[in-house]
């Protein structure tokens, strides 16, 4: 191991990154420039530093004893810091004596039209990295234990698959679901595209399997309310909402529901069917136990008299459960776009305008119309139906979403085909702008919808609708953009293909777990290509629509990926943590406690008796807040020491 007291001998390696960097910068000039910098003993250039040959260049120089510090001027450290650190370590040098200069994202990509300026910026970036490298100190990687237990938040098809995969591997899984039943949106669907297999037939056995799994503990009607700790050791508080029905005693017989006099809309049926105040969301719910909806209950206590096992308990209180978990997987899914505020489509005003999910319930054999869709105004089967695509999606209007929801084209065609199977004489129109049938077997599905089923595709977005007051028909105005003609179309019913949105409480989860959201509200992955199911918080994974709109096959694939990511962490039993934590020099500390209040990760604690401030290395994320705030300069942060940062600043502004 190289001694940090040795004079720094820096090797600078400039990466062309194909044309990404060398297409803009003159890398030979940069290499010559780097050679003139203090402490630089070697300066090289190569086409792809991240390749095996590139890494060998560095390793040979280390092994020959030529250099004891490494600077690679290439892409962002988020891309390849780990690659080069590993190479440095394998060659026998402490990996924290490596520094990456980002001349791609910070320079060649953003200044590709100002080559001269880009060149001088590249020089600045390299000069600063060299200055920091001279001051780098070796650090030791820390290891922490990973508990073999996982918390899965949200029990839709994604959460169920994660739980099942992890449970099968022997990990202790807790599956938290905020509604009274697991199953999520998929349980609401009738059939699934493109194979037209029955959704309930796929998901109900999985629900039962998860429900009976020895390693899976389902906490339904519960929410995560507090998360502390760090990778491998999350301390989580889960609040179980009161069911007002003893879940152990309830046999699911339904006697209570029969006598309950309160009728309200069933969320599971998208309000198209009623339920009682004491209810089971749907007959196949797991767990198959009743819950009282206290927002609607009138406390007549008829159910209490009826209940044979005497399970009703009006004094039920929320219960707090605390548990430690090694990993957390977020599978909170989505909420369908609510079109009520978009007045041109008349949803909520005209009874015969319904949403895609409502149509799905109508098509379902255990839905409000037992699989025979009718129009809400008169209960008759519609002869003509128009589907409006991109409702709430691909729109810049306030309250709508810019992105494509990725499933609406397919589900509209699926519902159209299903209705045509039941009513071959029906006229079906799909008003679309682009049909996005990109999955396996989807394009074929689209073609068959047009050719065999005779569904009419009209390229144009519906502009507005009116109701025919005589028969509640819907009159649509749009443009057939391919005919370049405005059209007017009268149909019996309109189905709005509403898009998918992030859950309303996604922000709450985001704050609890310290997981970022993208601008559209979905959770952000660590890297869109290479780490699509990891988040930037170690030990926390995300899968399914919680990460962004996707269909069932993609959701399940992600769920399996997330399960595998979490399993590999837990199977190792311990995980390496970057030693970027802050270190406190108690001799300098005046115990002002500014840092204790400011620390966003509650990593700093104060022992009053000993008058000692301590920083928990595992909790500390190395954000530097305390370092900057400390009035006594008692706190230093590893790898970002004041001397290291000042060296960069001094060389960045040499004339200062």
């Amino acid at each position, binding site marked *: 191991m190289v001694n940090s007291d040795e004079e720094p001998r820096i090797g600078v390696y400039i990466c062309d990154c194909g044309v990404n960097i060398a297409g803009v910068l003159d890398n030979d000039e940069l290499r010559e420039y780097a050679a003139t910098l203090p402490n630089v003993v070697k300066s090289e250039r190569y086409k792809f530093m991240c390749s095996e040959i590139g890494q060998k260049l560095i390793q040979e120089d280390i092994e020959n004893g030529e250099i004891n510090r490494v600077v690679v001027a290439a892409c962002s450290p988020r891309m390849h810091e780990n690659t080069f650190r590993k190479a440095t370590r394998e060659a026998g040098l402490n990996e924290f004596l490596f520094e990456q200069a980002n001349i791609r994202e910070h320079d060649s990509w953003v200044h590709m039209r100002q080559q001269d300026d880009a060149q001088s910026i590249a020089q600045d970036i390299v000069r600063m990295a060299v200055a920091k490298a001279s001051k780098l100190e070796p650090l030791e990687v820390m290891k922490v234990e990973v508990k073999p237990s996982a918390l899965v938040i949200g029990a839709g098809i994604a959460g169920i698959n994660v739980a099942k995969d992890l449970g099968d591997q022997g990990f202790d899984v807790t599956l938290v679901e905020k509604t009274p039943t697991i199953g999520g949106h998929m349980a609401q669907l009738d059939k699934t595209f493109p194979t037209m297999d029955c959704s309930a037939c796929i998901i109900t056995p999985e629900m039962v399997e998860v429900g009976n799994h020895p390693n899976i503990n389902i906490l339904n009607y519960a929410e995560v309310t507090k998360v502390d700790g760090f990778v491998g050791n999350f301390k989580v508080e889960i609040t179980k909402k009161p069911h007002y029905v003893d879940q152990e005693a309830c046999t699911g017989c339904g006697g209570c529901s029969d006598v309950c006099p309160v009728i309200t809309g069933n969320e599971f049926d998208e309000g198209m069917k009623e339920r009682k105040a004491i209810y089971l969301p749907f007959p196949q719910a797991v767990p198959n136990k009743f819950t009282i909806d206290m927002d609607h209950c009138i406390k007549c206590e008829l159910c209490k008299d009826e209940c044979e096992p005497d399970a009703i308990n009006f004094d039920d209180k929320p219960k707090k459960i605390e548990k430690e978990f090694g990993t957390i997987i977020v599978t909170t899914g989505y909420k369908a776009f609510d079109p009520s505020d978009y007045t041109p489509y008349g949803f909520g005003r005209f009874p015969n305008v319904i949403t895609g999910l409502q149509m799905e319930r109508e098509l379902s054999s255990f839905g409000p119309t037992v699989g025979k869709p009718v129009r809400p105004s008169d209960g008759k089967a519609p002869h003509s139906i128009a589907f409006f695509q991109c409702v709430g999606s691909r729109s810049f209007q306030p309250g709508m979403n810019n992105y494509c929801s990725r499933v609406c084209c397919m589900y509209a065609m699926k519902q159209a085909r299903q209705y045509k199977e039941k009513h071959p004489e029906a006229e079906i129109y799909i008003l679309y702008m682009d049909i996005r049938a990109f999955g396996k077997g989807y394009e074929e599905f689209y073609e068959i919808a047009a050719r065999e089923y005779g569904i009419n595709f009209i390229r144009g977005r519906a502009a507005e609708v009116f109701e025919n007051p005589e028969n509640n028909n819907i009159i649509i105005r749009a*443009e*057939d953009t391919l005919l370049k003609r405005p059209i007017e179309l009268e149909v019996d019913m309109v189905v709005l293909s509403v898009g998918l949105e992030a859950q309303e409480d996604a922000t709450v989860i985001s704050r609890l777990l310290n997981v970022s959201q993208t601008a559209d509200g979905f959770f952000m992955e660590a890297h869109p290509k290479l780490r699509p199911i990891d988040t930037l918080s170690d030990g926390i994974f995300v899968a399914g629509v919680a990460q962004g709109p996707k269909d069932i096959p993609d959701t399940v694939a992600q769920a399996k990926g997330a399960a595998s990511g979490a399993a590999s962490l837990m199977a190792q039993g311990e995980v390496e943590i970057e030693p970027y934590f802050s270190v406190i020099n108690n001799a300098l500390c005046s115990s002002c406690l500014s840092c204790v209040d400011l620390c966003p990760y509650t990593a700093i604690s104060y022992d009053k008796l000993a008058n000692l401030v301590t920083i928990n290395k595992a909790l500390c994320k190395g954000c530097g807040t305390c370092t900057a705030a400390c009035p006594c300069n008692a706190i230093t942060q590893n790898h970002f020491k004041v001397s290291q940062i000042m060296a960069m600043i001094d060389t960045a502004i040499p004339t200062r």
Partner: protein
Amino acid sequence: MVLIKEQIKKIDKSIVEEVVEDELLERFKSCYQCGTCTGGCPSGRRAAIRTRDVIRQALVGLDDDLLSSDLLWLCSTCYTCYERCPRDVPTTDIIIKLRNIASHRGLMKGPHLAVSKMLIETGHGVPINDEKWSNLRKSLKLTPLPPTVHSFPEAVKEVQTIIKELKFDELIAYGEEVKKKLAEEEKKRAPERIEELEAELKQLKEEAGK
């Protein structure tokens, strides 16, 4: 027939650039041709205005066809399409901008030129220049002339000063000039055109004979 490849090369120099001089109008490049504008256009129900088509033609740089067409002038600027556009394209503002560009190229329509000339001369786009209008006003128990420049002829000078300051008169004069030039060109082409039509007629007759 426009060769699309050549057309695309031309776009950079076309009105697209002129239109997007204004940052607000830049957004029209994100149009995805959904037809919400045309589908909900109250004017388009009655007249030939096809808003999406106007935007499309402007986007692909079909300058000559678009700027000289009647389409541009049929919009009543009610802003329905503007309000509904899912891509936030300021459709109505773009049409107004295109009209400005057309006017500056001398492509204002005849009736508009006539109205503008009236305005310059009398201070009214539709002046009360006929006895029947005064009579109509009288029958409605109104004064024969309204309290506008008609009642205060000296104010016409003020209107004309404003018009001169804004160089509106030059614009109209240029429009007249272009109109005349186009009419002359049309006239020159007339004999050719007659020949063409005669040939066509002959062919039709032959076919009918068969």
